[in-house]
C-alpha cells in the first residue's frame, strides 16, 4: 500500500496513543447536565425551555438561530433547573441549560436498538433536512454546522467526499475506536453523506499508525465507491487543507474552502452521527471522548452524553491523579487548557488530556537564533518568526500581506522552536488584529 501525505511542513510529535485499543465504554447520564446553547461555530441557538420544564432525551431545547447555527437537544431527561450563563471550556460564561437528571426517558421517535439499518430510500433533500434537525456539527473539533457544508454554493460542484479518520493529534483515540467498533454504521453514514452531497466518490483518510482501522475500513468498503487511503503519520494531516492536499494533491486556495477544489471533508465522528440521525432519528446528544494522560491508571474511550461535567468523566477513570497540573480539552497540539473541571463535555470535545507538573509548563523563552525550523514546519508556507516579530512590534498592517490569515493555528511552529518562543500566541494576536483591520475596511 502506498502511503500519501501533504507536501509542505509538518511535525511528528510523540504519539502517546495510550488508550488505543480500549473499547468504547458507555457512561450513564450525569446527575446534573449543563448543555450550552453555543457548542458550534456560528450564532448561538435560541433557548426553547424554561426553568421547571420537564425534558426528555432527544428533545429540542434550543433551536438554530440562523443558517450558520444549529439545533441543541437535551441529552438527558429531567427537570430544567436553570437557564443561565455557565462557564464552558473556553473559560467564558455562556448561555446554557442546566438539567437535574431524573431517570433516562427518551422521546419515542428515536430508535434505540442496536440493529443496523442499511439501505436508505430517503432522497438527498430529506437526508440534509435530517442532518440539520439533528444538530450535527463537525466532531473533529471545529464544530462547523454540517448542514452548511452539505449546501454546495452556486457555481461550485462537489466531486469527492473525504472522510477524516486521520486523528493526527497525539493521545486521542476516539476516532480510532469509532472506526474499529462502529465500522458498519460509519460506512452507512458515509454513504448517506455521499447521497446528501450528490457525489459518486468518497475517500477515507487514515494515518498509518492505525493499521487495524485501515484494514477494517477496507474490508467493509470493498466493492463500493468508498475507498480507504493510508497516510504517512504527520501532524497536522487532520487539517482539512492538508488532508485534501495529501489525498488528492489539490490545494485549497488561500482564504478558500475545500469546496473550491470540489471537495467536502467530514470527520469520521460526524459521519457516524449522520448515520444515527438519519437512520435512527437520533439527534447529536453524545459522543466518544478519550480520557487520557500518563498519570491515569486506565486511559479510555467513553461514550459520553453532552453536558456531562468533565469532573465526573475523570472520576470514571479512577479520579484525578494528584500530580495533574494541566487539563486539556482536546489534544496537546490544539486543545484548550481548562481552568476548572466544572465545565461540560460538548459536541466538539474529542478528548480530555491530563498533564502532570513537569510537562505542563512552558520552557524559558530564548532569543530567536533564526534556525528556520518554524518556516520549515509551517504547513501553510508562512514565516512564523517574522509574523511573531511583526506582532510583537504591533506592525499588524504588515502581517496581512505576509498571509497571517492563512494560519491554521496548528502549533507546529511553537512546538518545534528550540528557543521555546511563543510564536503561535503572537500570531493569534496578529490574526485578531488583522481581522479587525479587514472588517473595518469592509465596513467603509
Amino acid at each position, binding site marked *: 500500500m502506498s502511503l500519501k501525505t501533504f507536501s*509542505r511542513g509538518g*511535525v511528528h*510529535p*510523540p504519539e502517546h496513543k495510550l488508550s488505543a485499543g480500549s473499547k468504547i465504554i458507555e457512561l450513564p447520564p450525569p446527575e446534573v447536565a449543563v448543555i450550552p446553547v453555543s457548542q458550534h461555530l456560528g450564532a448561538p441557538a435560541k433557548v426553547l425551555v424554561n426553568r421547571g420544564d420537564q425534558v426528555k432525551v432527544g428533545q429540542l431545547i434550543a433551536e438554530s438561530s440562523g443558517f450558520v447555527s444549529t439545533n441543541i437537544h437535551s441529552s438527558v431527561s429531567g427537570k430544567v433547573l436553570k437557564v443561565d450563563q455557565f462557564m464552558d471550556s473556553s*473559560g467564558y460564561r455562556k448561555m446554557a441549560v442546566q438539567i437535574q437528571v431524573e431517570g433516562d426517558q427518551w422521546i419515542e421517535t428515536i430508535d434505540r436498538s442496536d440493529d443496523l439499518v442499511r439501505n436508505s430510500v430517503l432522497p438527498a433533500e430529506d437526508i440534509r433536512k435530517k442532518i440539520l434537525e439533528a444538530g450535527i456539527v463537525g466532531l473533529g473539533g471545529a464544530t462547523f454546522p454540517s448542514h452548511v457544508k452539505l449546501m454546495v454554493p452556486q457555481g461550485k460542484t462537489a466531486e469527492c467526499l473525504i472522510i477524516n479518520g486521520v486523528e493526527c493529534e*497525539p493521545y486521542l483515540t476516539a476516532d480510532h475506536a469509532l472506526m474499529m467498533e462502529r465500522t458498519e454504521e460509519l460506512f452507512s453514514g458515509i454513504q448517506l453523506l455521499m447521497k446528501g452531497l450528490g457525489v459518486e466518490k468518497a475517500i477515507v483518510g487514515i494515518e498509518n499508525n492505525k493499521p487495524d482501522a485501515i484494514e477494517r475500513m477496507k474490508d467493509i468498503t470493498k466493492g463500493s465507491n468508498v475507498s480507504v487511503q493510508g497516510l504517512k503519520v504527520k501532524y497536522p494531516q487532520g487539517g482539512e*487543507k492538508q488532508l485534501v*492536499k495529501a489525498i488528492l494533491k489539490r*490545494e*485549497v*486556495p*488561500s*482564504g*478558500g474552502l475545500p469546496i*473550491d477544489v470540489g471537495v467536502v471533508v467530514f470527520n469520521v465522528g460526524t459521519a457516524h452521527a449522520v448515520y444515527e440521525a438519519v437512520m435512527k432519528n437520533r439527534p447529536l446528544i453524545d459522543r466518544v471522548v478519550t480520557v487520557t494522560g500518563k498519570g491515569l491508571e486506565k486511559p479510555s474511550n467513553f461514550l459520553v452524553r453532552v453536558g456531562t461535567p468533565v469532573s465526573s468523566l475523570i472520576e470514571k477513570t479512577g479520579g*484525578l491523579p494528584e500530580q*495533574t*497540573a*494541566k487539563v*486539556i480539552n482536546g489534544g*496537546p*497540539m490544539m*486543545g*484548550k*487548557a*481548562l*481552568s*476548572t*473541571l466544572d465545565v461540560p463535555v460538548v459536541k466538539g470535545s474529542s478528548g480530555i*488530556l491530563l*498533564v502532570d507538573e513537569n*510537562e505542563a*509548563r*512552558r*520552557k524559558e523563552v*530564548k*532569543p*530567536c*537564533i*533564526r*534556525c*528556520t525550523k518554524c*518556516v*520549515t514546519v*509551517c*504547513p501553510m*508556507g*508562512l*514565516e512564523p518568526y*517574522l509574523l511573531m516579530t511583526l506582532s510583537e512590534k504591533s506592525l499588524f498592517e504588515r502581517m496581512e500581506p505576509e*498571509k497571517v490569515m*492563512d494560519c491554521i493555528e496548528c*502549533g507546529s511552529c*511553537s*512546538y518545534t*522552536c*528550540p*528557543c521555546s518562543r511563543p510564536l*503561535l*500566541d503572537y500570531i493569534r494576536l496578529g490574526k485578531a488584529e488583522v481581522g479587525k483591520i479587514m472588517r473595518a475596511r469592509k465596513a467603509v
Partner: protein
Amino acid sequence: MNKFIVSPSPHAYTDESVPKLMYGVIISLLPALAVSVYFFGIGMIIVSSVSVASCILFEYLIQRYMMKVKPTHLDGSALLTGLLLAFCLPANIPFWIVMIGALAAVGIGKMTFGGLGNNIFNPALVGRVFLFISFPVAMTAWPEPGQWMHYTDAVTGATPLGLMKEGLANRTVGEIMPEVPSFLHLLVGKSMGSAGEVSALALLLGMFYMMYRKIISWHIPLTILATVAIFTGILWLANPDRFADPLFHLLTGGLMLGAIYMATDYVTSPMTSKGMIIYGVGIGIVTVLIRVFGAYPEGVQFAILIFNGFTPLINKFVKPKRFGKEVKHG
C-alpha cells in the same frame, strides 16, 4: 480544589534546544578537530583552547559587565564560535593574537549587535578577517603538517591556493600541480592551511552528521560546492593552462569549512530554502571570482561575509511557497 495551569496551545514541545543544537554542531566538528591535532599537534591544542576559552570569557564579561544581562556564555554558541575561529587560523599563531581575534569575534561580531540571534555577520569570520587585516604576516605563515611538538617555531610554507596564485604569474597550471599535495593528501588533510580547514573528508563527515541530525539542510553547503565546481569547471574547460580544475578548488583552502560551517550559521543565513540557494550560489560565484581574478588566493571568507550582508535583503524578498493560490474575492 485543584489549581490548573492554563496556557494557549500547543501544550507539547520538542526537546530540541539551543545548547543541544550547538553541541550537535560541536560533535560534528570532532573528526576535523582530531585530524587537525594529528597534523598540527601542540599548536592546534593551544590555539583551539585559547580561542574557545577567550570567546567564552569575553562573552561572559561583556554580558555581565557591559550589557548587564544574564550571561549565556555556556549555551554552546560561544564555544562554537571559539572552535570555528581556531579552525580558520594557522596553528602556529601566537596565543595573544588568538585572544584579540576572539575579542573581535565575540565583541564586534556578536555582542555589538545585541548577542546571539541579532548579529548580521558570522562572528568567527569577523574575528578571522580582523586578524587577517591586522596581522597579515602571522596570518599567512602556514605550518607544515606533522610537526607535533612545534608551536610558533614550526616550519612554514604556502597553501596550495597560495602556490597556485603565485605560480600562475609566470607558469601554467600543469607546471604548478606537482608542487601541490596530492588529492589524497588534500582529502585527508596533509596539507598547509588554516588548522581546521585542511581535511575535506573530516569536514564532509561532519556535514553528513549535521544533516542526519537535521541541524542543517543540504541547501547551503551543497549549493556553494556545486556552484564552485561548475564555475571553475567552465573556466578549466575553457583554458586548463590558466585555470585549475574543479576538484582542486573544492579540496583546497577554506571552501569546505566555509560552505559547511560558516555559511550555514543559523543567524546569518537566509530563512527559506529558496533564499538559501540564492545565497549559496552567490557565495560560490564570489569565492571563485576572488580566487581566480582577485588579489587574494582565497576568497571564501569575504564571499560569506558579503552574502551575510545580503541575508536580510534575501529574507525580505524571497518568501516560502505559500499554501494555496490566492483567490479573487468579490
